[in-house]
């Protein structure tokens, strides 16, 4: 078992017993579901919208080479510097280089999961820079020195009281239970940072090939300040973020907001076309767009699971996933948690180390049903399981499944197994709850039904 798998099992074991966590997450996500359903009903035809979005992303991903080249050349035409980074260290070093060259000291950052993916903050802090997260949720988890709990709602696992205590401890503010006051405390701390910052780092929601623009969607206006005030702007995005045309946003912006947060459309939607142009009075003087591959092209080469690159990181699959709702975001130990994380992490970080996430699913399919771009998520988990066995089968399991096949395929043996089950039932009941119980992984929390005195097949035979 990999270290990651052991950590997952340990973390899952303790958090699933935490009833406070369970209640908090179930309540929050039930509210989300209700809001999402209200907004979904505003679409004339939600399933047609999903189909259309899936087809657009299919086109974008299947012609990624063309669209990326178009995106980059349009950006460069307006003075943006485009950096192509095949790996995590190259992306990190590119951004470190930009920051060194700009002689920056203070950096503000808006929400970017790709930055989590390349562990950017740790690298910059190690270089001696101060990096301040400007998204409220990210600001909170940064103060707690922990990774985001959820790709869209980074601090959803915390209550107002916990946030108030954190602010009191870290920022010296007065305790309060009012969300508005908590927001104002963060705002006062952040406003100073925007003015001090020399570099602003952002992520991106969509990269528009046709016009060479980056679309960023947010609810707090922090990404606008992050991009508009510092002299240098850096945008880090995965290469899968491409959309072919500007008009595609007409569908994708409401789709993202509805599926991700139960909103009609997100509060602020900004399109960035380039750095400050001659004659313009504001905006960043330099804009660097850093395109990250980090094994996405390997996923692109897999025709069966290529559609995982359609992902617009809305978080809808996490929100409806009963596994996520019970183990929470941190248990996964990955940048991308929930169903999409379980699908792509084995591709991004190695199948054998991360196959346990594909096994940690009841394959219920709620994720696939919720995905606004129709990624076949739960079937990809099945394929990951098959691929993991194909690469490195467990011989114990293989023998067990062969034995199972032999028994169920041989009626006399199958009946004999049932008979054995009946005979050992009293002994099994006595052993229940002890480490000798062979079914203890079931019986520790659940009763096991006994083998019936007369099986259906026996009844059927006797009846005739």
């Amino acid at each position: 078992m990999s270290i990651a798998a052991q950590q997952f099992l340990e973390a899952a074991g303790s958090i699933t017993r935490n009833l406070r966590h369970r209640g908090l997450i179930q309540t929050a996500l039930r509210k989300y579901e209700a809001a999402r359903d209200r907004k979904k009903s505003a679409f004339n035809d939600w399933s047609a919208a999903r189909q259309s979005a899936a087809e657009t992303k299919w086109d974008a991903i299947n012609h990624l080479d063309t669209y990326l080249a178009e995106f980059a050349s349009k950006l460069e035409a307006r003075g943006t510097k485009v950096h192509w980074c095949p790996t995590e260290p190259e992306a990190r070093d590119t951004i470190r280089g930009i920051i060194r060259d700009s002689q920056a000291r203070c950096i503000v950052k808006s929400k970017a999961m790709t930055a989590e993916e390349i562990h950017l903050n740790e690298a910059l802090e190690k270089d001696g820079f101060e990096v301040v997260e400007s998204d409220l949720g990210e600001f909170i988890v940064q103060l707690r020195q922990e990774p985001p709990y959820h790709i869209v709602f980074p601090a959803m696992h915390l209550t107002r009281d916990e946030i108030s205590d954190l602010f009191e401890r870290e920022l010296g503010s007065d305790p309060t239970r009012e969300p508005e006051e908590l927001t104002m405390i963060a705002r006062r701390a952040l406003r100073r940072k925007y003015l001090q910052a020399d570099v602003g780092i952002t992520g991106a929601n969509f990269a528009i090939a046709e016009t060479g623009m980056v679309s960023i969607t947010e609810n707090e206006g922090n990404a606008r300040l992050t991009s508009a005030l510092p002299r240098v702007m850096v945008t880090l995005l995965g290469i899968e973020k491409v959309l072919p045309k500007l008009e595609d946003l007409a569908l994708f912006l409401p789709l993202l907001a509805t599926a991700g947060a139960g909103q009609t459309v997100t509060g602020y939607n900004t399109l960035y076309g380039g750095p400050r142009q001659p004659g313009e009075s504001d905006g960043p003087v330099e804009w660097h767009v850093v395109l990250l591959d980090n094994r996405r092209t390997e996923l692109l080469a897999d025709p069966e699971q290529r559609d995982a690159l359609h992902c617009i990181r809305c978080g809808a699959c996490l929100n409806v996933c009963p596994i996520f709702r019970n183990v929470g975001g941190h248990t996964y130990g990955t940048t991308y948690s929930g169903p999409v994380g379980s699908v792509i992490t084995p591709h991004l970080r190695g199948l054998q180390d991360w196959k346990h996430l594909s096994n940690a699913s009841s394959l219920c399919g709620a994720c696939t049903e919720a995905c606004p771009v129709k990624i076949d998520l739960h079937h990809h988990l099945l394929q990951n399981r098959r691929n993991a066995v194909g690469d490195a089968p467990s011989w114990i399991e293989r023998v067990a499944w062969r034995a199972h096949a032999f028994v169920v395929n041989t009626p006399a043996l199958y009946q004999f197994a049932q008979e054995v089950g009946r005979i050992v039932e009293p002994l099994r009941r006595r052993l229940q709850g002890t480490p000798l119980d062979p079914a203890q992984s079931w019986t520790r929390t659940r009763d096991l039904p006994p083998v019936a005195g007369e099986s259906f097949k026996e009844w059927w035979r006797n009846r005739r």
Partner: protein
Amino acid sequence: MNITLFIPCFVDTCFPEVGRHMVRILERLGHRVTCPEAVACCGQPAFNSGYWDEARQVAGKTLHHLRDAEAVVIASGSCGAMLKVFYPQLYEGRPEADAARALSERTWEFSDFLVNRLGVTDLGARFPAKVTFHDGCHGLRELGIKSAPRKLLEKVRDLELVEMTDAETCCGFGGTFAAKFPMISTAMGEVKCASAADTGAEYMVSNDSSCLMHLQGLLSRQSKPLKTIHLAQILDPQ
């Protein structure tokens, strides 16, 4: 009609009454029911674990024995999904591919068969209790069965059907998942049971014995008054 009733291994072994009720219901409707002795398992446990070669060892036999069946009715949405959805994938590009597709088209989950193939909703049953229905995920999302079991329950005399908040949320069984990740499976089951209990129902009904095995196991262990029951047990007027 000649109906081949496929009673999956765990129903055969632990819940034989479910199969007996199905036989009685189908025969009372005037159909000829056969239950092939040699067919025990659909092969899903090995398939879901990633052992597709071993799954084919089981599925191949099932495919062979069901090849001439006019209609296969299966007593589980999950095993039904294996036959209808996953056999064609398991045999894609293999000599048995046509047979797998043909079997898929002739296979029906029990409630779906009654309502959408036979056009029957009223079986003359009476069950004086308040119940809530749990949608098994494979039946719901792989086979698209949502309304059939409810149409059947609505026609049962003296039965009150109430929907729970999380009717479509997974109960946490998930086959080998329940044994490999018991702590997550248990937490999911507890959420489900709480949601069902909140409706004030006496019974949680489902068309999948596998979900019910897990849920009843939890309820019994925790001495909860809520009980589980298979749809076929309610529908058979005895």
